[in-house]
């Protein structure tokens, strides 16, 4: 009897540390931000230093603010621009390096190394590459016949592209690793059969490799999506959201509201919006994939 009770309690004991961790570092801050987002609190305005309840006013103000709309649009462009291209590139990279050739290790290293660098260092290197006039990036582009504007980080039409470019360069190699691992686990027999049937490499990629790697793609696109929202360091280094706020994305804007403008209420509202977006994506991604799994079996 005694043992049975102990065994029943055991799982709770085992998950307790994790539960405690999640509660302290995820659940509590989320709840607190949600509550704070309903209050007006400006630390640098003496009369608004103590929180006052204002309902949803922070949210209403945000959606009336053209800068916030710009930030949302930028974030959308950023995510849509960075995630699919990084994932597709990662898949292609994996195809390239998944061969037994001499010196393939060097190629793998070259493609993977950007993801080892801290984002700040990577952005600092790119800052140098982006230098107008003599920057390596412009010099390289000229070889391909580019004669457009060279001032990447200060041009209102290019600044966001510059930020996206760094994120893309940084992440594609990292996602490649997952595809590479996936590719190496695929059964060789299927490929042999396909080749005997006379399927070309493109047919093989679309009809065999991609379907078999669907779970990898799901995983990679999920982390790519979340990373796109979380990574912000390069914005600080490259553009500070400028010029004229044209390269500001959600997390940078949040930091600015909280630590530059000392606006606790508004930054909490932004936190809630960010969490809502991520949660909506993760849940829908999960539901969709579960459905598909169920349909397959």
């Amino acid at each position, binding site marked *: 009897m005694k043992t049975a009770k102990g065994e029943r309690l055991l799982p709770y004991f085992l998950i307790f540390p994790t539960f405690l961790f999640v509660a302290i570092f995820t659940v509590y801050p989320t709840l607190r931000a949600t509550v704070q987002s309903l209050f007006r609190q400006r630390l640098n305005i003496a009369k608004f230093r103590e929180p006052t309840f204002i309902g949803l006013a922070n949210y209403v103000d945000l959606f009336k603010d053209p800068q916030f709309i710009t930030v949302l649009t930028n974030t959308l462009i950023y995510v849509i621009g960075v995630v699919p291209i990084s994932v597709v590139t990662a898949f292609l990279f994996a195809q390239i390096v998944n061969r037994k050739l001499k010196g393939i290790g060097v190629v793998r290293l070259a493609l993977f190394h950007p993801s080892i660098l801290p984002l700040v260092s990577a952005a600092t290197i790119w800052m140098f590459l982006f230098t107008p006039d003599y920057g390596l990036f412009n010099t390289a582009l000229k070889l391909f016949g580019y004669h457009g504007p060279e001032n990447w980080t200060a041009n209102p039409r290019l600044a966001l592209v510059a930020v996206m470019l760094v994120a893309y360069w940084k992440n594609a190699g990292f996602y490649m690793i997952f595809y590479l691992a996936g590719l190496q686990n695929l059964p060789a027999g299927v490929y042999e059969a396909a080749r005997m049937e006379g399927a070309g490499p493109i047919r093989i990629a679309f009809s065999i490799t991609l379907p078999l790697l669907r779970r990898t793609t799901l995983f990679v696109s999920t982390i790519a999506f979340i990373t796109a929202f979380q990574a912000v360091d390069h914005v600080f280094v490259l553009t500070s959201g400028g010029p004229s706020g044209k390269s500001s994305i959600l997390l940078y804007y949040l930091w600015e509201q909280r*630590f530059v403008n000392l606006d606790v209420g508004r930054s909490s509202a932004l936190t809630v919006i960010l969490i809502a977006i991520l949660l909506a994506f993760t849940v829908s991604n999960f539901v969709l994939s579960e459905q598909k799994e169920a349909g397959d079996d």
Partner: protein
Amino acid sequence: MKRLWTILLACALLATPAVLFASGQSESASGGQTTIEVYYPVAVDAPIAKILDGYIQEFEQANPNIAVKPVYSGGYADVKTAVQTTIQGGGTPPALAVMLATDLYDLVNADYILPMDSFLDKLPNKDTYLKDFFPAFLENSRYNGKLWSIPFQRSAVVLYYNRDLLAQNNIAVPDSWNSLGKAAAALTERSGNKVTRWGIEWPSDWPYWLFQPLAIGAGHNIVGDDPTKVYFDDPSVIDAIKYYNSLSGTYKATPPGVQATWGAVPNNFSSGNTAMIVHSTGSLTGILSQAKFNVGVMAIPGKKTGTYASVPGGGNLYMLKGVPEIQQQAAFKFIQFLTEPARAADFSIQTGYIAARKSSYDTDVMKSYIQKVPQAASARDALQYAGKELAVQNLGEVRTIFHKYLQAAFNREMSAGEAMAQAQKEADKALEPFR
């Protein structure tokens, strides 16, 4: 038995954070010693951390009962963020922090900092001590009749010019907007369509600071004595924007639009690829160590011939609220130590910052340094033309607004007048709660 193990394991896991926490706390206050923390930004190239470590060693030898623990954390913004997160998270802030002089109002309003008057009052030579600081540097220290910070690593906006190039081309040192534009145009070199040397480079990636001398030089600063007022739509400010744009448009002597070149410009200048640059005095040491030509340093020429302008910048020493009294006293002692004339002189020589105290320039070490490096005196002399650096209530928001529209005007997305009218309107709204 199994159950016992489980409980033990759970207890051990639970206890871990507590143990870690306790071990983190234990190092302060042992054996009658006071430990103070100093949060410190390492924003410029000079090996600041090493220099400061040296001062701390000296200080600790002279004051064996005080230990100083420096925390170097990125730039100014990082220090401010660190202070905020510590205080808001319920932790004990550092006794001392170097933050921007312009952070004053935010820090007072948020109730983070301690006025220094009660400590200064105990000094036998309070008045002479304060009067010895350059007035331009103390401008952002006073508020509500109290003194909140002591100038420490201070700089100013100056024009660096290649003296040799000017002489070779028989161009006089510019003394007005007009002559500056002409000199810059004459010194710009092109081969075909490609520019091989710019006449002038004037970074505008974080634009308000380097822009302010233009507004002052046109006749009106963007900020005045009232911390709830800005003058973004003043005709002088609009004039200044038009002049900045004319350097690329009319004179074709600088790259068009916003110039995201703060980090690159000192190198462009010292390698001879740019004839003149506008930058911080903080870059002086680096530029002098690399340039193979005569470097001239001066305040920015104004609109009228013979007028000049500059703005101070940089960080002050702040004491934070919420640390024990004994640490506050130790911190103030360390402030006095850091600002002793000879030490301020040494700091200036090693870093290129302007020594915050006038008497530093009477010390022998500084005198002989200036004999060798007269540019250091020119940097200091620019201060006499300095107006107030942008510091107002709600600074972060107001500055972001100004940056947004200033850059829009630089990039020709809006006309100067349009942009500044909008900036003024939004800034007035941001300042309304303080009026």
